[in-house]
Structure formats: C-alpha cells, structure tokens
C-alpha cells in the first residue's frame, strides 16, 4: 500500500488554492474494518513541526494506529519551520507545516492534507468587527498604533505575533504582505497558538492571529475584508487568510509506515477529522 506516491506531488505546484484530491484510489485497507488485517506494518514514525495541525493530526494518528496497532506515531509540535528543518536534516520521518514550502525547502515531497484559515482575533470586548488586509498590515507593521485610528476606543494596540518557527506566522506574513515590510519592533512575540489566544483573551487592546481551530468564546475573530472567518469562506477563497497544512518528507528515506500514513491522511475517514476541528477538507 505504498510506493505510489512519487507522482502525488507536483513539484511546481505551490500554494495551490484549489483543493485537489491527491489520492484517487479508495479506500485503502486501513479504513475497511471488515477486512481482516492484511497489513503487517510495524515501526515508529516521528512527526515534528506545525503546532496548528496538532488537534487534527492527533486524531488522525489515533485512528490510524488503531487499525495498525504495531505502528507508533509520535508528533511533537515545534513549529512549522522546525518541522521542515528536521525533515531536511533527517531528524524526523515527516515534517508538518502550516505554510507553503519556501524555495530553498523545495527538495522535500509534500502532501497537502487540509486547508486552514488564519483568524485575526481580538478581545471579545473590542468593538471592532472588521479589518481589511491593508489595516491588518498597517497594524502589524506599526503604521497604525491606536485603535482610535480604526474607529475604536483610544488605546494603544497590543500587537501579538508568533515565534519565528511558526508556519502560521510565515503564512500570515506572506498573505498580508507583512513579509516585505517587517513586523513592528515592539510586537509581543509568544510561542504557540495557545499563548497568542491567551494573550489576546487577557488584554482588551490586543490583536493576534491563530489557526481557525483556536477560535473560541475567549477571543473574537474579526471579518477580514468583510468576509467571515469560516472554513466555507476560506474554501471558496473569499476569506483570503488561508493556507495549506502539509506533511513533508524525503522520498528516498520514507519508511512503509510513514508512506501508509501519508496515504491515510487524505482518505475520507481521515478528512472527517479535518472538518471536526474547523479545517477544510482537501477532497
């Protein structure tokens, strides 16, 4: 059930917007419970990287290993860039990324298993409900520093960003154009989606950005250019802050277990978990 993935990844296709089902043959052995076990997969697969994918990936792993009890899959959330770096060094079997690969990272194979939106979040008490990409850029680059400039109350904007390893940050900077201007020096930098969410939840004047799966009652997601931050809108492409979730790996060194898992993540069963956590299915 492996070895067919060489053709799955189009080397030239980056940042592809239309969710292309990567795997056409269905179903694989793993999701047909009535078939008696034909797989003899055994071994460990280590995944490191994006923290945004954690919730989705943990469910997928749990499900996959239930059917493949001899396979153990470890996931460590270290940030997308770290996962990609690890994959290039051979320090993991699979890297998880919440942004597209950069030019210098293109040597790796990739499997897109979900799309996700990046929600721009404010404290629930903040009156502001909509921001344009332009405004977001200006806030993050330090051109706008007070909420009153946006029609809010007179208070300094507390800009919260992610650590450098974050794929969410990478995607956010790319999609807003912040990458070219640079983050405002005084921005608060915290590690992890959780910390962004907590910091924004704890400060009326803060603004942050998180994966869709981190939207909850403690923080308020604004509409961007008037479009609500929902998976549907992101899928349609009207909500512009969206990016793929990918798994990256080395073609030459991928173990059968790793390959099987890479195949599994785009299967319908697995894709259900994507939906469960506010992501966008690829099929």
């Amino acid at each position, binding site marked *: 059930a492996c070895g067919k993935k060489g053709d799955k990844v189009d080397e030239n296709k980056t940042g592809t917007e239309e969710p292309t089902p990567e795997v056409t043959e269905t179903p694989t052995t793993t999701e047909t419970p*009535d078939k008696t076990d034909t797989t003899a997969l055994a071994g460990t697969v*280590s995944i490191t990287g994006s923290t945004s994918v954690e919730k989705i990936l943990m469910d997928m792993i749990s499900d996959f*290993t239930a059917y493949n*009890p*001899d396979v*153990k899959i*470890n996931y460590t*959330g270290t940030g997308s860039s770290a996962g990609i770096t690890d994959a290039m060094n051979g320090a993991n079997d699979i890297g998880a990324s919440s942004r597209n690969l950069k030019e210098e990272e293109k040597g790796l194979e990739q499997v897109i298993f979900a799309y996700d939106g990046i929600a721009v979040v404010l404290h629930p008490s903040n009156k502001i409900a909509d921001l344009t990409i332009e405004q977001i850029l200006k806030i993050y680059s330090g051109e706008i520093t007070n909420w009153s400039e946006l029609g809010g109350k007179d208070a300094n904007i507390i800009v919260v960003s992610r650590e450098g390893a974050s794929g969410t940050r990478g995607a956010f900077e790319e999609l807003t154009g912040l990458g070219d201007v640079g983050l405002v020096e005084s921005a608060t930098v915290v590690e992890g989606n*959780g*910390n962004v969410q907590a910091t924004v939840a704890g400060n009326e004047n803060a603004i942050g950005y998180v994966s869709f799966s981190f939207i909850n009652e403690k923080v308020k997601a604004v509409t961007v250019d008037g479009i609500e931050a929902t998976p549907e809108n992101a899928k349609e492409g009207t909500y512009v802050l969206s990016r793929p979730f990918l798994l990256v790996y080395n073609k030459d060194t991928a173990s059968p277990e790793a390959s099987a898992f890479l195949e599994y993540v785009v299967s319908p069963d697995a894709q259900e978990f994507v939906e469960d956590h506010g992501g966008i299915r690829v099929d």
Partner: protein
Amino acid sequence: MMKNNNTKLKDGILRGLIYLSATVTVAILVVIIGFIFYKGLPGVNLKFMTRMWDDETTVVDVSRNNNSNSHGETDYVESLGIHIALEDKNIVIKSIDSNSPVKDAVNMKKASYELKTGDVIGKAGNTNFKNITLEEAKKALDEGTETIRMKITRTGGGILPMLVSTIYIIGLTLVISAPIGICAAIYLNEYAKPGRMLNIIRFAIQNLAGIPSIVYGLFGMLVFVQTLKLSYSVLAGAFTLSIMLLPTIISTTEETLKEVPMTYRESSMGLGATKLQTISKIIIPSALPGILVAIILSIGRIVGESAALIWTAGTIAQIPKTLVGSEAAAATLTTKMYWLIKETADLEQASSIAVVLIVLVIALNMLSKLITRKFLKKRTS
C-alpha cells in the same frame, strides 16, 4: 552619653523593614503556592495520576454471546452485556456485566484488550457512531455477525507517562553523571597534585555550573539530537542533563570529601592501608551522606528542568520504550507543563501538574533533611 530618641526611631524603622521583608517573602510563597493549588488542585485526582495523557484508540473484535435475557431497556446491549449512554455526543460504555464478552475483546493483533467502563465507542461494524442517537447505537451494536468489530477510544487526560518519563530521566541521568562525577571528585581531591592545572580545572568546572541551562539545551540539541542522531529521546535528554549536572555533583562531592578529617586519612595510612583502601573504607563512607544530599539536589534540578530538556527529550507524552529513536522521546512533568501553557493556554491543567511537582519537591527536600539529620546524629553521638 544617653541614648537619644533619634536612635530609637531608627531602630524602630529598621525593625519595621525587617518584619516587612520577612512578611513579603512569606506572602510571596503563600500566594504562589495558593495560586497553584487553587488553580490546580481540583484537577488532581486518581485518574489524573494514573491515566495516559492522550486518548488511545483501538480497534477490537468481540464475539457476542447469545444468551438472551431480554430486558428491553434502551441502554442495555444484550448481546454484549453492556450498558451504554450518550455523553457529549459520544456513546460511552456505562457498565459491563460480569460475564460480558467485551472482557475478552481482542485488538487487531489478536492480543487481548479488555474493554472498560468509560470507553467510548466510535464505530461498530460499519456504523459510524458520530452524531448517533442511543437507539441507533443500540441497534448497531445488537445487530450483525457473530463477531463485531468496534473502534474504541479510551480517554486520556492523565499524567502517568510524564511521571514515568520523569523517573526514567532521573534514573538515566544519575546513572551517567553520579559515578563519573563522584569518581572525578575523588580524583581531583585525593589524587591530583595541587597546582595551576588543578586550579584551572576547578575554575572551569565552577564556571560550567553557572551556565544557563538553555545553553546546555542548545548544545545537547545540536550534538546529541542532531549530530549523533539520537533524536528527541530520553538518552539525549539524560546526556545533556548529565553534562549540566556534572559540575554541581563534582563540586558538592569535593566539598564533602574535604570535610572528611585529614586525620582519618592519616590514621588509615598509618595502619598500612593503601590509598584505595583508605578511600573505599574510610573516605567514601564518611562522605556518603553529603554525596547523597548532592544526588538528591540533582534530582530536584532534573525534576525542575525545562529549558535543557524540551529540545533534547522532546514533549511527547508517552512512556519511552527505548533509549534512543522516536519511541524514546519523553516529556517530563515540567516540560509538559510548559508545553500546555504554550499550546493550549490551559493554566488549570498546567497548575495541576505544578501541584504534583511541588509535592515532589517537598518530598525531596524532606528526604535530604532526613539524611543530613541522620548524618549529624552519627557525627555527634
């Protein structure tokens, strides 16, 4: 020369400041411990201490039984001998009959996997239990072939893996660093010739003890995890911590060796003992309590360490099965606590871990006191 009021006033002010400072110190402690226990204590219970961290999903096969003693209850699945319930949109096993076949369930490897109350049924046969009513679930479970295949999820939420991993890392680190550190201290104190060289070595060791643990983490990640390809593993963590602890172990041990009176060495040698005999029979036994305290202090540091471990042992909540490789990655209680705050902003659960940590620290403190006291008694009696 009479005391003037000025002095009395000054005395009073200073005395006030002293009391204030002591109060502040105690208040800080009370507030911190109070905060942690207030947030964390509700989450500490037996399940928290004994369960796995992650949910565990398993596919099992169960051979139904056919003794039909129909109750007709909506929540009773006759053929499996279990009561089920709908909790949070999940179908959960509420109770299991004593002769229920689910006790003989086997997983995909045909190994026995006994179901327990609290297990969540995710799928039975071809029916997905997502958004299902109790009736539908009962029906799906009652129907079908002789063996039914079910997907079972056993909920986690416990810190057992971190407890075990912490113990592993403590054990491994001490196995590496304690003998080397103690032997090195013996060499430096009993064998090495005093002089410039020894002073330089001591200086270097002393310095190393002050280096921030994050620098050790940086070193460990690059050398052990990446260059030596140990990956995030207990061994990489233990190596890193060993190097970090060596200086402390060496200098504390040297201190205690120095406290062993010179006359013990002299009399032993005077009785014709060799150096090694003197060391093993007199010096080490006399220094043992001090060495033990050094080791307990090291355990305390291992328990509390995070910066040097996150990037060497990883943050995976699992019971490590090997020393290196991906099955060896292991989060300790402290690293997991940090991870929780960073990824989930769940201060409550993090505090629950903190409660366990504080209790652990108190226990270690008491242990080292006990040893010192025993030692003092022996000395004075």
